[in-house]
């Protein structure tokens, strides 16, 4: 278990020191949310209706932005080869890297979202639901991002291909995330089922994505 944590700790320290991953995602998130109301104009009603969807799309794109740095640095400096040798199963390596990506990127963005939602006149009633849905949903986003990064490991400019590969997998997260967020002001009965499906997507990704990611890396190494 200490092997698992040591990898998570290292990855988080690296994102904090290098600023490439977390810092970039956060900066992007902030930029879009500041520019959006300026571009759309001061129609408060319209902004309020737009806010949940805009926040979710921005979260999705911010997570995508740092995706290609999940495995690439370790691949380039030879660390990934040594990780492949063990003793920790490669599936756990992939899981640890996903969790580190989530803690470094998805989770901070989810926590910031309600606060930044004020820029879009996000209804105060939605602060709780959006935080909850985004914390859950961003875990799935990081796990799927890790899968995309594993499939494209070794490609020089993999970022674009990752986006195309995992975009279809992000669509359900977006749909049910927005629907859970909007439920309180729209159809309250939708909140429960949407959250359940979102949780199911996260849990399924938690189990399946690391296995698929490990298989992709093994196939690449051979």
């Amino acid at each position, binding site marked *: 278990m200490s*092997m698992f944590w040591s*990898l998570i700790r290292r990855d988080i320290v690296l994102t904090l*020191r290098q600023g490439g991953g977390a810092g970039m995602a956060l900066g992007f998130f902030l930029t879009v949310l500041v520019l959006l109301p300026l571009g759309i104009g001061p129609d408060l009603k319209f902004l309020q209706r737009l806010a949940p969807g805009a926040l979710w799309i921005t979260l999705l794109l911010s997570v995508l932005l740092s995706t290609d740095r999940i495995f690439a640095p370790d691949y380039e400096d*030879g*660390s990934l080869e040594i990780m492949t040798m*063990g003793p920790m199963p490669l599936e756990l390596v992939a899981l640890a890297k996903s969790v580190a990506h989530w803690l470094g990127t998805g989770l901070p963005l989810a926590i910031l979202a309600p606060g930044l939602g004020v820029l879009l006149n996000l209804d105060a009633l939605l602060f709780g639901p959006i935080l909850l849905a985004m914390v859950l949903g961003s875990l799935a986003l990081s796990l799927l991002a890790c899968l995309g990064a594993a499939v494209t490991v070794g490609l020089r400019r993999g970022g674009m291909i990752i986006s195309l590969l995992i975009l279809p997998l992000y669509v359900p997260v977006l749909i049910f995330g927005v629907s859970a967020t909007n439920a309180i002001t729209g159809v309250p009965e939708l909140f429960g089922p949407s959250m359940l499906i979102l949780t199911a997507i996260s849990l399924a990704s938690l189990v399946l994505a690391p296995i698929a990611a490990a298989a992709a890396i093994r196939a690449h190494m051979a």
Partner: protein
Amino acid sequence: MQLSAKNLICRRGGRTVFSGLSFTVSQGEGLLLEGPNGTGKTSLLRILAGFGALEAGELELAGADDELTIGQRAHYLGHQNALKLALSVEENLSFWANFMGQPATASMIEQRLDAFNLGHLMSYSAGLLSAGQKRRLALSRLELVSRPIWLLDEPSVGLDTASCTLLAAAMRRHMEAGGLLIASTHLDLGLSFNHRLNLADLAEQTP
């Protein structure tokens, strides 16, 4: 413990790199891989470590009491040093020690670094080291985490004469302690290997 290979064949990109490669290395012995560039020294070491493509042949590890693979018992040092430049020298080693399941204290790390004359740079960022110092830092990992098999691919690249002597001493210590050593090098490290394998002899003859 004994590592033996029988009739290994390696193909890369449609070309047969080597075929009919066999060797046996026992506890406390060393195998030196020789041959010009492109004869498959790196491919062979990668196959042994478990991430190369083996076309045919048998690899066997005899006399091992558990079910670990060769890769799980081996250190592999390739052309890359597997260092994170944003971490300090100590953090780099301490991470690998933790990751490989043998956590190390600061004094253990310092001792290993001293063996490669890096002790005074322990708190430096690895990004500030020279190429030779980075190589020495990567080499320090080998003895910090004890693993019975060492697979070294040109370990002396970038090292000065004094550091080569330190490397040879580390390799000798490893074999004396009963470890297996398989290394490829073009440099005479003043080390006597029990076995030598020239991969140029096994290359497919081009007509």
